[in-house]
């Protein structure tokens, strides 16, 4: 195999950092990768229920924009109480009573169907705030942070708003929410490569298998990062071997990492020797995007 020449900058691509299980080190890795990068990089914090990347970067946020979703509002003077909107709504967000039509906007998915179906044009759309996005700079890192308002149920609209800030000129690292359902899928969708962060425990393994099945269904290329690789058991290593999944990096468990993390310090503060490894990791993924082998 011909070795690629060493690269000093990584090609622009969308690299998502995900995991099934929470607390395996997604944010830690996403921040460390951004810090290790030698050229300007964009970090999109899509864990909008509990965004944490900013705690390790302390950027100066310059802009705060509301994220809104379109929800129906009713003009009772035009409503004929036919109930077609309530019948149409798949999310039970509209209840039609004989003399009143009630809208439960927290259940609304903003599909616009009720507006289209109303025969008397009694429904119009209005913007409802559900969260915010902020943009900040910390050295070479541009951070975009999405925050779901407390009490709001649906995070995908905020995640989509964060992802709209993607600039194809830059390497973009996406810090994803945990799990394998709509928020995680919304965040990883259309990534060029996904890094699944896990830990070598039965919980880590079980949730990794779910995440792997999800990414295979989405047809996204991925590799595994084994965090705290010296705790637990061999289950994750054996699984990855059986499934021909590349473990791209192993990060040891070290008390200084936990202590640094607790104080808002990053992985590279605790383990500075990891920096060249993270740079090599980015190069490997970058080359794989241009047809190289992982």
């Amino acid at each position: 195999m011909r070795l690629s020449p060493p690269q000093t900058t990584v090609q622009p691509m969308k690299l998502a950092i995900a995991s099934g299980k929470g607390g395996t080190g997604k944010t830690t890795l996403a921040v460390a990768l951004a810090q290790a990068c030698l050229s300007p990089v964009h970090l999109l914090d899509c864990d909008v229920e509990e965004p944490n990347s900013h705690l390790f970067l302390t950027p100066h946020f310059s802009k705060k924009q509301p994220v809104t979703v379109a929800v129906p509002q009713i003009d009772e003077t035009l409503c004929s109480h036919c109930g077609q909107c309530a019948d149409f709504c798949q999310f039970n967000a509209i209840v039609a009573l004989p003399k009143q039509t009630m809208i439960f906007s927290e259940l609304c998915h903003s599909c616009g169907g009720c507006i289209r179906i109303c025969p008397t044009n009694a429904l119009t759309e209005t913007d409802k705030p559900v969260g915010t996005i902020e943009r900040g700079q910390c050295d070479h890192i541009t951070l975009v942070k999405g925050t779901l308002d407390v009490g709001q149920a649906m995070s995908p609209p905020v995640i989509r708003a964060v992802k709209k800030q993607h600039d194809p000129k830059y390497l973009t690292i996406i810090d994803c929410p945990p799990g394998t359902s709509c928020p995680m899928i919304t965040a990883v969708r259309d990534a060029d490569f996904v890094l699944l962060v896990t830990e070598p425990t039965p919980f880590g393994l079980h949730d990794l298998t779910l995440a792997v099945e999800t990414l295979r269904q989405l047809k996204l290329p991925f590799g595994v990062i084994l965090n705290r690789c010296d705790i637990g058991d061999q289950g994750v290593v054996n699984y990855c071997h059986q499934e021909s999944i590349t473990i791209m990096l192993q990060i040891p468990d070290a008390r200084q990492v936990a202590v640094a993390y607790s104080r808002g310090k990053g992985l590279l503060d605790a383990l500075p020797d990891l920096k060249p490894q993270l740079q090599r990791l980015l190069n490997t993924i970058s080359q794989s995007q241009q047809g190289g082998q992982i």
Partner: protein
Amino acid sequence: MKEIVIISGKGGTGKTSITAAFAALANKEAVLADCDVDAADMHLLLAPTARHTHPFYSGHRAEIVAANCSQCGKCVPLCRFDAITSGPDIKIIPSACEGCGVCVHECPQNAITFNEQRCGEWYQSDTRFGSLVHARLDIGAENSGKLVSLVRKEARNLALAEQRELILVDGPPGIGCPVIASITGADVVCIITEPTCSGQHDLQRLLALTKHFEIPTFLTVNKWDINPEMTATIQQEALKQGVKLLGTIPYDSEVTAAQVAAQTVVERGDNSAALAITVAWNNLYKHLKLINTTP
């Protein structure tokens, strides 16, 4: 009967390990429920035997019948979820479809079907600590909130049938849809956090949520000794907000060792985490006796 929901905001703080240990300590007085349907792990410690398995159907998904599609493209801009690709062949991306039915309604050829969607399975199981209701959401499926509500409802039915005093619920991380579905109407919420910047940040958002829903809230700081100063700060802030403290749990490698052995940490005999979890459980149990019960 009292329903206790264990949540954390931030993932990986030890919710499931501690809930399973509480289950062991509840001495078969509780029905157990795993509401982290996205990434359910409690069964790995409780080794359940399923008594009944039920499919979970919820919502619909649009699908184009290629033979009837005229490729007019009317549906593409109508979809608010970018779930319909405009390419040479108009297709619906199943994982992006939210099942709203707009395309189905507007298609001039009636070429889009709208079938009810199987989203997962749920189980009633036996464990060595009593009955467990748990579920598995299918890969890429929607409606985790509805599945959470179903698991809680079935756990309640089982607790009534078995005349149990308690329902112990292992909740999901975050503050969004599945968390809201897990805590609305619960008797108490028990938050497991850790003394880190992230844990502290996420706790504040979670406390705002439990306050919003007016649910009595308890707090346990796990791995408190990683950062004793921050543990103290977190506890003081929580107290100011009317949260009751159940105690702290030290970092103990026995927690991971127990997980590897498919045990709860309190089944591994004397260790510092097991002792601290027992203290926390006894405190919670004492408080529960003082709270007005729901029928």
